[in-house]
């Protein structure tokens, strides 16, 4: 196995590590990094995780590869059962989904996400795809793991979303407690620059990739950056984790989430930057 690895692989591993063993976990469609992360978690540290596929609702499948679309039969491979659409959403609505992954074209400091539109609502500059089931699921799912591969663009982490599709910890309408939402909201955010937690319901930088420093994160972040007392360097993937990423996603579908510059970011298993 090539011990040199790239950012996309590391991010998938970091996302996988947010999953606890025994959790019931769901990724949305069109979310290859989250999808890879779930299959990696299930095959490494979280064998008792209940893995629900993002658009087939297959239960614990073991696909031979990840296709470029989420509603594909290849994602039923090895699944003992395929849930109904209804069953997945009801599971989420009644609080029995422990974790879901969410991303966004815009993400604000409270973890609110926008996957609906950039610009005005009647004639948006960019009509994004839409939120799928996130608008309701985000209210009731136990914990949210947020990710973005576009933090470095400077346009993704914003002070205020043009449109809030999925609620984080607080919107102009109120906090989760005020709105009576039983779900815990964003617990972790993994980006192409580093990792965040949400200690007071607001994103706080806690860890960095070895090729990124706090100033770079600050420069790419559209809101005032909160930083943990001790910002640490991320722990690199273990050999087993890395092998599993490659096994789960042999065709590198995860890479479609990244720009070419980020795909060139490479590391060694000691967590050092690798020279190309």
């Amino acid at each position, binding site marked *: 196995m090539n011990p040199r690895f790239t950012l996309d692989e590391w991010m998938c591993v970091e996302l996988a590590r947010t999953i606890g063993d025994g959790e019931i976990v769901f990724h949305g469609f069109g979310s290859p990094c989250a999808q890879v992360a779930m299959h990696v978690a299930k095959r490494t540290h979280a064998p008792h995780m209940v893995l629900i596929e993002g658009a087939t609702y297959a239960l614990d499948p073991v696909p031979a*590869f990840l296709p470029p679309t989420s509603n594909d039969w290849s994602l039923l491979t090895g699944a003992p059962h395929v849930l109904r659409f209804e069953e997945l959403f009801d599971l989420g609505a009644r609080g029995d989904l422990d974790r879901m992954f969410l991303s966004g074209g815009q993400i604000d400091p409270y973890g609110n996400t926008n996957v609906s539109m950039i610009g005005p609502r009647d004639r948006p500059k960019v009509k994004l795809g839409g939120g799928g089931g996130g608008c309701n699921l985000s209210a009731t799912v136990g914990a949210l793991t947020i990710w973005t591969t576009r933090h470095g663009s400077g346009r993704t982490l914003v002070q205020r979303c043009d449109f809030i599709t999925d609620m984080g910890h607080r919107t102009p309408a109120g906090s989760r407690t005020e709105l009576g939402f039983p779900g815990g909201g964003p617990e972790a955010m993994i980006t192409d620059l580093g990792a965040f937690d949400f200690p007071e319901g607001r994103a706080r930088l806690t860890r960095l990739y070895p090729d990124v420093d706090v100033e770079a994160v600050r420069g790419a972040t559209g809101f005032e950056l909160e930083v943990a007392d001790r910002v640490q360097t991320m722990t690199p993937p273990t050999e087993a984790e890395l092998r599993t990423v490659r096994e789960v996603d042999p065709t590198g579908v995860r890479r479609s989430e990244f720009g070419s510059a980020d795909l060139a970011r490479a590391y060694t298993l000691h967590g050092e930057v690798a020279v190309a």
Partner: protein
Amino acid sequence: MTVRRRTADDKRCGLPEAAGLVADGDVVAIGGGLSHREPMALVRELIRQGRRDLHVVGSAHGIDVDQLIGAEAIGVVEQSYVGFEQDFGLAPAYRRAAGQGAVQLRESCCYTILQQLRAAEYGLPFIPVRGIIGSDVLHLHPEYSEITCPFTGQRLIAVPPLAPDVALIHGLLADQHGNVHVRRPLVLDERFAFASRRVVVTVERLASSQEVSAAGVTIPYFLVDAVVEAPYGAHPTSCYPHYTYDREHIAAWIAAAAGDEGIREYFETYLAPDECHYRDQIGEAALARLRTFDESPERWQELMA
């Protein structure tokens, strides 16, 4: 005593007649989702017939809605998502129409739509929903209302029933009575069939009642108004276990849909006059190739490359 359409003995008809059950301005529920089992033969026939002002509702969709928008057949989009995932990204016709204000955006959430369909199915004048209250999706829907739970005092959103005028579904098998067999994932197909006023079905193959029953009836005949045999009726989306999705053709649409001219050319090339022409244009060899997905995971990957 009259025999209602839905209990008639024989629901078989041609694609033009079936698509004729969709009227301009109808609320239309489109089955399948993303790249999977969308009723594309019906979508193409609606385009051929020049349908206008449709109000489409449903969960996550792709080329079906984007083509209908490209054909200027849609007035209102009430979907939870329209696009091509990481595969090809944003839906080009949708994005452009939205930016020009050419379609009304009533973006919704899979779960809200599910609950609205259920309200229709249960004969309820409203059903409460919890999550929307934290989302700007709320502001795209003046038809929702706030309500207080009589037990907990909690603020909830009351959503009205959603009974689509017509559901368009592509299944695997149907008998002449209208019993339809579909395989999971069903997405919202079952709920669409139960909640809609009319149900129009295309299938890969008409079969005997015995065969449909043995395979499993997903939609019982008394819900169905019309069934049409439409082989490759989901192309270019997948219809497993028969064929995988035609990624190359979807790419061709994405390229064409970059501008009005491309869209016109695409429709000219592929649509008129009928599905035989469409299949000819795609080509027998290309279609047959899509059926080879199950030879090995490697072969499957190859088809998707």
